[in-house]
C-alpha cells in the first residue's frame, strides 16, 4: 500500500550573514496511513524547517532547493519559495504550531478562525461553517463551545488556545496533521491532555501524524516511529520503543544519557561533549565525530548516510555495532 506521505531528499537552504547553508540536508521519510512519526532533535537541527518545507510554509530567506513531497501518490508542486498552497493535495495536510498566541489572529474570534477553512476551502455556507466550528470546538474538548465561539485568543488559557489551533487544523479535514512542538509551551498536566486528544483523533479519525519535538520523553507517548535529527539530517530512525531502549547512533544515546530521569534520581545526566557545530562550518566526514567517543579515523573522512541496522531501523553511524556491543556490555544503564 502506498504510504500516505512520502518525503524524498528534502533540501532547504537558509542564509546567514549573506552566506547560504543547508539547514535541512537530504531528509527522507514515509508515513503510512494512520501512522505517526516523531522527529526529535535539539534547537537548530532543522526539524521545524522540515515540517514547514513539507507544508509549503518556508520563512523568508528559506529556499527549498530540491526534494519531493508526495501525498497519496501525487507529487506536490513545491515551488522553490514554497508557496504551493493552492494545490488540492496540500489541503490534505494541516499544521499545528507551538505558540498558539502568535499563531492565531488576535482580532478575530476563535470561532471565526475555525470556520474559515470550511467556508473558504471546503465551500460551506456561513451557517454550516459555524456549525462545523462549534462541532470542532466540542471535539477538541472545549467545554461550552457555543459560548467559546465568540472568545478572542487572548481571553483563553494556553491549553485551550492549543486546542483551538488543533480545531483549526482539523477544520479543513486533513488526512495528515503536522505538529511543530505543540506542547512545548504548555504545562505538563495540560500536555498530557493534548497528547491524549491527539491520540484520540488518530484512533477515531485515522489521522496520520508527524510530530516534531525536542523532548524525548514525549516521543514514546506520541508516535510509533521516531527519527533523530542532527545538523539537518536524520541520524537514526526506527520504531520508537526500540530506538529509545537500544539506540544505534551515539547522538541518540548521548541525548538519552543527558536527560534526567524522574524515576531514577541517581542517574547522573551526562552532557554530550563539545557543542553544536556552526552550520556554516560543519565538520568534515561524519558531522558528529568531534563529539563522539567512538570516532575513528574513518569517521573524519566518510560522509556517513543512513544505513539499515536492523528490521525497520537505520543509523548514520559507521560503528553502530560497536555502540550496540558497548550497551550490551554495560547491561541496562
Amino acid at each position: 500500500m502506498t504510504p500516505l506521505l512520502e518525503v524524498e531528499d528534502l533540501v532547504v537552504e537558509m542564509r546567514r550573514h549573506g552566506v547560504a547553508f543547508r539547514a535541512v540536508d537530504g531528509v527522507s521519510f514515509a508515513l503510512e496511513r494512520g501512522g505517526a512519526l516523531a522527529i526529535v532533535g535539539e534547537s537548530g537541527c532543522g526539524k521545524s524547517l522540515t515540517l514547514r518545507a513539507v507544508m509549503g510554509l518556508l520563512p523568508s530567506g528559506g529556499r527549498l532547493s530540491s526534494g519531493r513531497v508526495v501525498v497519496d501518490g501525487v507529487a506536490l508542486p513545491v515551488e522553490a519559495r514554497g508557496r504551493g498552497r493552492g494545490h488540492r493535495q496540500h489541503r490534505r495536510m494541516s499544521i499545528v504550531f507551538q505558540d498558539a498566541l502568535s499563531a492565531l489572529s488576535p482580532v478575530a474570534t476563535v470561532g471565526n478562525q475555525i470556520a474559515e477553512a470550511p467556508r473558504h476551502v471546503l465551500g460551506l455556507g456561513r451557517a454550516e461553517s459555524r456549525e462545523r466550528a462549534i462541532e470542532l470546538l466540542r471535539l477538541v474538548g472545549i467545554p461550552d463551545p457555543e459560548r467559546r465561539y465568540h472568545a478572542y485568543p487572548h481571553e483563553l488559557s494556553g491549553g485551550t488556545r492549543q486546542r483551538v489551533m488543533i480545531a483549526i487544523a482539523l477544520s479543513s479535514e486533513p488526512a495528515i496533521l503536522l505538529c511543530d512542538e505543540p506542547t512545548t509551551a504548555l504545562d505538563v498536566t495540560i500536555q498530557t491532555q493534548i497528547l491524549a486528544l491527539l491520540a484520540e483523533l488518530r484512533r477515531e479519525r485515522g489521522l496520520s501524524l508527524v510530530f516534531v519535538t525536542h523532548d524525548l520523553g514525549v516521543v514514546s507517548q506520541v508516535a510509533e516511529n521516531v527519527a533523530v535529527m542532527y545538523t539537518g539530517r536524520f541520524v537514526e530512525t526506527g520504531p520508537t520503543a526500540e530506538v529509545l531502549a537500544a539506540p544505534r547512533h551515539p547522538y541518540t544515546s548521548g541525548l538519552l544519557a543527558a536527560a534526567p530521569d524522574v524515576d531514577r534520581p541517581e542517574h547522573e545526566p551526562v552532557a554530550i561533549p563539545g557543542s553544536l557545530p556552526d552550520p556554516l562550518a560543519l565538520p568534515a566526514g561524519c558531522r558528529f565525530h568531534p563529539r563522539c567517543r567512538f570516532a575513528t579515523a574513518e569517521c573524519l573522512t566518510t560522509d556517513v548516510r543512513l544505513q539499515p541496522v536492523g528490521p525497520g531501523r537505520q543509523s548514520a553511524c559507521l560503528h553502530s555495532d560497536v555502540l550496540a556491543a558497548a550497551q550490551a556490555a554495560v547491561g541496562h544503564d
Partner: protein
Amino acid sequence: MTEALIEVEGLSVTFRSEHGHALRAVDDVTLEIAEGEVVGLVGESGCGKTTLASCIAGRLAPSTGVVRFDGRELEVSRTVEDRRAIQMVFQDPYSSLNPRMTVRHVLSELLKVHRLVPRSGIEARCRELMALVGLPTSALDGLPSQFSGGQRQRIAIARALTVEPRVIIADEPVSALDVSVQATILKLFEDLRSRLGLTVVFISHNLAVVRHLSDRVAVMYLGRIVEQGDREAVFGDPRHPYTRALLAAAPRLHQVELVRAVVKGEPPSPIDIPTGCPFHPRCPRSEEICTRQRPALAQAGACPRHLAACHFRDETASRAEP
C-alpha cells in the same frame, strides 16, 4: 539544630487587577530553607513560585507575612548587604544580560561598587569567576550576542556569584536550554553547591530536574504549598493528588502507553479560586468535604517534615503505573 537561613512565614501577595479584583498570587506560604540546602520549588504556570521567589529576593514586597534571613526580619527596602546575600538567576538567557555590556564590564562593575577586591585584583577575580563557571577567559571581552543560551546562563550565574551571595534563587534556569546543555548547567549547580556551600532555591516545572538536584521539595498550586518535604518522601510517597498528577504526567523515556490524563481541566483563574480546597474541581480524589473545607498543610506520613494539604493525606498512592 541549625537555624534556618531563610524563613518565610505567612507570606501572601495580592495584586489588584484593573477592575478591582484581588488576585492572590501567593497565599499564606510558610517555608524554611537551611544553609547549604537545595530546595526545589515545583509547580506549573500561575502557581506563584516566581512571585514567591521575587519576595524572597527582595524584588517584590509581600502584602502580608515576613521573610527572615539569618534570623533577622528583612525590611521591604533592603540594605545593600542583604540584597547581595540573595541573588537570582533567571529563566530566559536571552533577556538576562545587558546586550550592550561586555562580561568584563558587568562583573568588574559589581566588584568595584561593592569593593569586594582591591582595584588591582579585579581582573584576576573576573578570570576566577569565568573559570568557576567553566568559561574561557576570552569570554570576558564578549557581548551577550556572541554567546549561546547555555553560555549566557553561565555568565548569569557568574554575575550572581560575583557579589558573594549566600543564597541563589534560580528561576527555571534550564527550561530554555537543550537537554545536553541543560545537563552541563545542572552539573555546574552541583559543583558550585559542593565547592562553595551555596544554598539554592531551584524553581522548575520539570520534575526530573528537581528530583535530581534537590534535597527538599515544595509543590505549589494556585499560590499555596500543597506538599513539601524531603525529596524522597515527596517523590517516593506523594500524599497530595496534585503531586501524583505531576509525577504521572512527567515525560518518561520508556513510557509503555499513553499517560492517562489524571487531572482534568485547567487551573482556574487566580481571581476566582474555588472554595474549600482550590484543587477540588480538577482532583480525581475529591469528595464533598473538599468543596467546603480547605485542608491545612499538615504532617502526612511518618516524617514530621513531610506535609501535605489534603484531607486524604494519610492515604498512600496506589502506584499502578509502570
